[in-house]
């Protein structure tokens, strides 16, 4: 299993300056803890749970020259599983969805998900070809750049260690002001 910080640190390190990174739920909390915000970060807090993938898809379609990386939770993915089908149908080559698979709703107290499905198999069943799984931090860190360089859409499933009691992410500021700033940064 991979600690969530070890899942996200390689993404921070390898993130290109023109990459968009969307984070939600526990991943948003740890992403903010790991370092300063980037102008092309979308910390999806406050959120409508399950929709980080859809924001990522929309940005990827509008900005085909940029890579968009969505760091999603497994509970969030379950809440909008159909978005994988939509992503497959639109097939943006610049979209990467990383699913932090820890089996629980961590930010609400680590209650178990209704089930722990095989997200990689589900992604493949939608027609997404670039699907990868990692359960070891060193292996993920070593393979990440190669995986993210593949023609997308790409889905990565990481076997992540749950941390019951981890605080929920706090909004880093006015969502509407951050939206305006992100829109300006994306136009630049």
């Amino acid at each position: 299993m991979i600690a969530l910080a070890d899942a996200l640190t390689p993404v921070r390190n390898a993130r290109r300056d023109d990459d968009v990174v969307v984070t939600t739920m526990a991943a948003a909390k740890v992403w903010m803890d790991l370092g300063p915000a980037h102008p092309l970060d979308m910390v999806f807090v406050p959120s409508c749970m399950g929709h980080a993938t859809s924001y990522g898809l929309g940005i990827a379609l509008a900005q085909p020259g940029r890579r968009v990386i969505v760091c999603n939770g497994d509970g969030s993915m379950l809440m909008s599983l159909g978005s994988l089908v939509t992503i497959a149908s639109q097939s943006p080559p610049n979209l990467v969805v990383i699913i932090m698979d820890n089996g629980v709703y961590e930010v609400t107290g680590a209650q178990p998900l209704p089930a722990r499905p095989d997200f990689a198999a589900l992604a493949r069943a939608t027609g997404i070809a670039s699907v990868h799984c990692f359960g070891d931090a060193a292996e993920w860190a070593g393979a990440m750049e190669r995986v993210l360089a593949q023609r997308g859409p790409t889905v990565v499933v990481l076997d992540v260690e749950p941390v019951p009691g981890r605080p929920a992410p706090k909004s880093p500021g006015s969502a509407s002001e951050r939206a305006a700033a992100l829109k300006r940064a994306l136009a630049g």
Partner: protein
Amino acid sequence: MITGAGVADVLRSMAISHVVTVPDGTIGRWENDIERAGIRLVRVCREGEAWTIAGGLYLGGAAPLVLIQCTGLFESGDALRNTLHEWKLPIYAMIGYRSYLNQDNLPGDTSLVFTEPILAAWRLDVHFIKDSGQLGEIAEHYRACQAASKPGVALIAEGRS
């Protein structure tokens, strides 16, 4: 009767780049004309996705429009709330008002009870379109909403084939 060609003309005049949609028996018939107008259709699995994909498109500089039935409005409340009222993205939607012109298929359709109060509850600026002669009003309403940086809805009466 509102035709796909008429809707496509209006969307083109609005410079809409993407239509994010779940079809129904009325709005679904417009898809071919919309695509022929060079507007990209993004077909989604459930209406909540439509608001947030449109949100991402808008942030990325595109000009999206959500096209769903009122039942999809009912389904997609949390996505609408977050996108329009927390992130304050001025997404415009065309929402089909099921059974408004004809209840033969669904007598007593509760869409007629809940659609307008729910749009009001979501504090949306709504412009009601009851016939094809009003289609041009959608573009005017869209431009007014964009100028005010606020979301808006064209509510499209359905039920007459």
